Structures are given as C-alpha cells and as structure tokens.
C-alpha cells in the first residue's frame, strides 16, 4: 500500500547510504575544524590543573584586561546600536536617491582588513598624524590609549546591527507603522510599540554578535593599543602577550574566558532564532479574521 508514497519520497531525496555518508563527512569536517579547536582551548587551560587555571585568572593584569574589554564593549555596542537602528529605519522605510550606495558604504568596514582599520586611526590621531601635534600640545592621548581602542572597535563592529536589521525591516514593510501613524501615534510611539516588537529578535541577534566581535577584536586593536600591560591590553591582546611569553597555561586560561563568551553568544543567538521562528509560525497560523497574537501571560 505504501509503495507509491515511498517511491515519490525517494525521488526527492537520496538513498539512505548516500545520506549517511554525506552526514558523516559533514560531521567529521565540523568536528575537526570547529569542535577540536574549542575543546583544545579548555584542555590546554586546565593542563596543569584547576589551581594553575585560577591562578592565571587572578593576575591583576588579567583583571585590568577584562575591565578594559568590558569598557570597550559598553561604549562601542550601544553606539553601533543607535546607528544600526537609525540606518535601518532610513534605508528600509524610505526610497531615496543613492540608497544602494549608502547600503554599500554601511557594509564597507566588513571588508576592510582589521589592520587597515587600526592604521587609519593612527594616521589621524598618531604622533605624526593630522591631529597628532594638536593632541600632544593639549596632552590628550588617543593612540596607544583607551580612546583609540574604542574607536577601532567601533569601526570593526560598525555594520553588525544595521546589517541584521535592514533586511528584516525591509521584509516587514511599512503598513503597520503607517496604520499606527494614521491612528494618531507619534513617531516615537510607533517605533516603540510597533516597530521594536517586530524586530526585537533580529535586534538581539545583531547586538550579541556585535558584542562578541567587540570583545574579541584583535587586529585593529593591536595596531592602536601599544600593548601597555595593565593599561591598554584587552583580553585578546593579553592572550597574545602571555602566549608569546610561553606562558601557555595562562594564555589558554584567559582564552577560555573568551571561548565561554563565544559559547554564551551562540546559545543566546540560537534561542533568539528559535523564538523568532516560533513567533513567525504562530503568526502564519492565525486566522485572517483575527490577525493578532494574543500575549501569553
């Protein structure tokens, strides 16, 4: 009885043997290239036991690196968040001349090498740069100091949130916002009560990836930091210094903090994705007469 159904199914899928081979190859590849490096970080960090691991994390230099990394992210992520929302709003909701060009420019920092990103700030604020003499005269340090690190981080993480929001807001169109305005909502109310709930998962996704990159950026920050221990070392730079000093356990211990950050990022990202998919499904299943999602308590 089930023979015709079976034959049709095999027409749009592969035999069990092919299927199993492909899955195995994909999983072996993923294991070698993604799981092993991740596992290596933690085993190397714990090579000399938990004591040595905790010892490495208790170093004052490690603490100042953690602090600087957090400060950088706390400044860079909100700035890029505000920019991302503003850019997505004007690009997704309106038609204007030069829109495609503006979108390309927003993407630009993605394709610029991190090293070049660091270099451009050295050329502007460095001792021989445009503002170098003026900054020196006023005793303001940007390069080889915290402001330079923050600037380079902002550059590198610049497009993350905008990139996430633009396609999302384009797909959702303008109807709901227009309805809100016509019904008398102010611009802010429309954004807060109509747009934001629609884009919240994409927003979280963008923020979390932006944050991971901000905390983990190496190339750009390494050019502008000057590597002053305890002052201008972020966590990734601290990893490099320890590693080059052959303090392998300490280097991997600090690296494991960043690996944990990456894992947390992936978990939050996946949860946001699943929730978004579920909401989309619920909306798709609503009857056309009552196209409203009733909030669960």
């Amino acid at each position, binding site marked *: 009885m089930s023979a015709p159904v079976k034959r049709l199914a095999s027409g*749009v*899928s592969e035999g069990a043997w*092919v*299927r199993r081979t*492909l*899955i195995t*190859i*994909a*999983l072996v*590849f*993923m294991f070698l*290239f*993604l799981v*092993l*490096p991740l596992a*290596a*970080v933690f085993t190397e960090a714990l090579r000399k036991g938990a004591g040595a691991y905790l010892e490495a994390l208790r170093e004052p230099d490690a603490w100042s690196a953690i602090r600087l990394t957090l400060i950088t992210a706390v400044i860079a992520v909100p700035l890029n968040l505000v*920019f991302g929302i*503003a850019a997505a709003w004007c690009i997704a909701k*309106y038609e204007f001349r030069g829109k495609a060009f503006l979108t390309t420019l927003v993407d*630009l920092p*993605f*394709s*610029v090498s991190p*090293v*070049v990103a660091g*270099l451009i700030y050295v*050329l*502007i604020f460095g001792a021989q*740069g445009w503002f170098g003499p003026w900054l020196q005269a006023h005793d303001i340090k940007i390069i080889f100091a915290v402001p330079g690190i923050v*600037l380079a981080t902002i*550059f590198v993480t610049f497009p993350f949130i905008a990139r996430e929001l633009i396609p999302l807001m384009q797909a959702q*169109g*303008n*109807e709901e*916002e*227009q*309805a809100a*305005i*016509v019904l008398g909502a*102010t611009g802010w109310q429309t954004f807060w009560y109509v747009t934001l709930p629609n884009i919240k998962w994409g927003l979280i996704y963008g923020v979390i990836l932006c944050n*991971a990159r901000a905390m983990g950026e*190496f*190339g750009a920050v*390494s*050019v502008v930091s000057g590597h002053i221990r305890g002052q201008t070392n972020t*966590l*990734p*730079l601290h*990893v*490099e210094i320890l*590693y080059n000093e052959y303090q*392998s356990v300490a*280097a*991997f211990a600090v*690296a494991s903090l960043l*690996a944990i*950050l*990456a894992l947390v990022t992936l978990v939050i990202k*996946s949860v946001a994705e699943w929730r978004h998919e579920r909401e989309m499904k619920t909306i798709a299943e609503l009857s056309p007469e009552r196209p409203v999602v009733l909030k669960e308590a």
Partner: protein
Amino acid sequence: MSAASISSPLSAVGRPMQRRTTRRVLPGFNLTLGFTVLYLSLIVLIPLSALVFKTFTLTLDQFWSAISSPRVLASYRLTFGASLLAAMVNMVFGLLVAWVLVRYDFFGKKIVDALVDLPFALPTAVAGISLTALLAGNGWVGQYLEPMGIKLAFTPAGVVIALIFIGLPFVVRTVQPVLEDAEKELEEAATCLGATRWQTFTRVIFPSIAPALLTGFAMAFARAIGEYGSVIFIAGNMPMISEITPLIIVGKLEQYDYAGATAVAVVMLVISFVLLLVINALQAWQRRFTGAPA
C-alpha cells in the same frame, strides 16, 4: 510603474501623490538619514580618506617600491593563494554542511547548526592559538601528522587551515536560506521526467543555489584576505615564506614606516572595494534568481 510596488493603505490616493504621502506618513527620515550619514562619515569615511591623503604625500616611485618589494610580493602571493584555497575548500564543505542541515534529520542537528557560527563568535586570537596547539608537533592532531611528514603549524598550509576556520560560516549561512526556500516541486518534476538524483542536483538544484554559493565564496575570500588574528599565531611569520600582507603593514608600522604601511594598506583597501562590489553584484544576481514572486 515603479511606484505601484509600494503597497500602502493609502493607495486609493492618486499615484503621483503616493511617493510624497509615503514619505510624509512615517516621520524621522531627515533625522535618521542625517545621523546615519554623520556617523558613517565620522567613523568610516573621514578616517579612510586619511589613508588616501597620506598616499598623496608619497612620490610615485616611493609608492611603487613600497608595494612591489620582493618581500611584499611574496606576501601577496601567500595571502591570495591561501585565501583562494581556503575559500574553495569552504565552498565545497560549506555547501555540504548547508545541504545536510537543510535536507536531513539527525541527532544533534540543532547543536551542529548553532556551532556553525562559532568562527563568528570566537575571537580570532583564540582560534589562532588553539589551532596552533592542535597542529604543533605535540598537539592532538600534529602528533599523528608529523611522523607522516605532514607539517601544518608554522607553514603556509597552517595559514590555509586558519582561513578555512574563519570562512566556513559565510558559505553555510548564505547557501542555507536559499536551499530552504528551494521548491521541491521542481525536483519532483525532474524526477517524474526521468532524471536521476544526481542529474536533478546538477541541473535543477545546483543552478538555483549557484549565485548564493558564489556570494558565500566571495565573502569568505574577502574576509580571508584581511584576516590577521588567527593567522599570525599559526603561520610562523617567516619573511618570503609565511608572512601575510596584513602582517607586513604591522611590521612597517612598528618600524615607524608610516608611508610604506599606508601604501600597502591602500593596495589592500582597493582589493576590498573591488571584492565588495563583486559581492554586491552577486547578491543582486541572486535576488533576480530568487526574489521574483509570481
């Protein structure tokens, strides 16, 4: 007829009016556009222009000798060769991973799916030192490879490995949604018309995902060319052999050779621009393929 594509509840209003009404209905255009352009200029455009202005302080001879010394040329060869190789490996395995994730069910699929983004989330320096630890002579993988005469850490091959790690999600994440949206009816039709599964794949499925695959390839390639953090730990950084172009820039900066660093950086920037345009063109092509609803 282009304005007709804007569907608005006010479409009863005459068409010549429509564009203006749409603009007036939603507030904040001037504010958001103004802020976007200002922030973009301050963070990206003005700093990047500094690179161009600095280049103009060099004579043509200085510029040329900075970007074409043998050591720099060797670094271009390594950077491009390794990036190309890594992007090609990623194209093959990225397609495979995307295919397996979209078409098959297996235990732990959601975890594997989440793990694909690990290279986006893991700081490059961490990836660099852990890949080095794996592939070094006493590492988990290196201890088996080295007796066989295969040396990966501190060689150009190590650079390729690091770049494969960095580029994988680009291919998977661009191909995956296209595969998800692919219409099964077409495949059924192909099968009904007597095509084998392999013919269906090469003649029906592959052409529809080719633009996405190429986009992913170009993105992985562009990212690989600029990559610094993960590569410098594993490369060994020997001049002429395993020194990548971004490292040349850092090296020149450390010797306070700002002009030389800028010249090489301009070369890299031009390449980034070209790649960005190629990626944009590929994405437009992809939209034409998939984004024409009936």
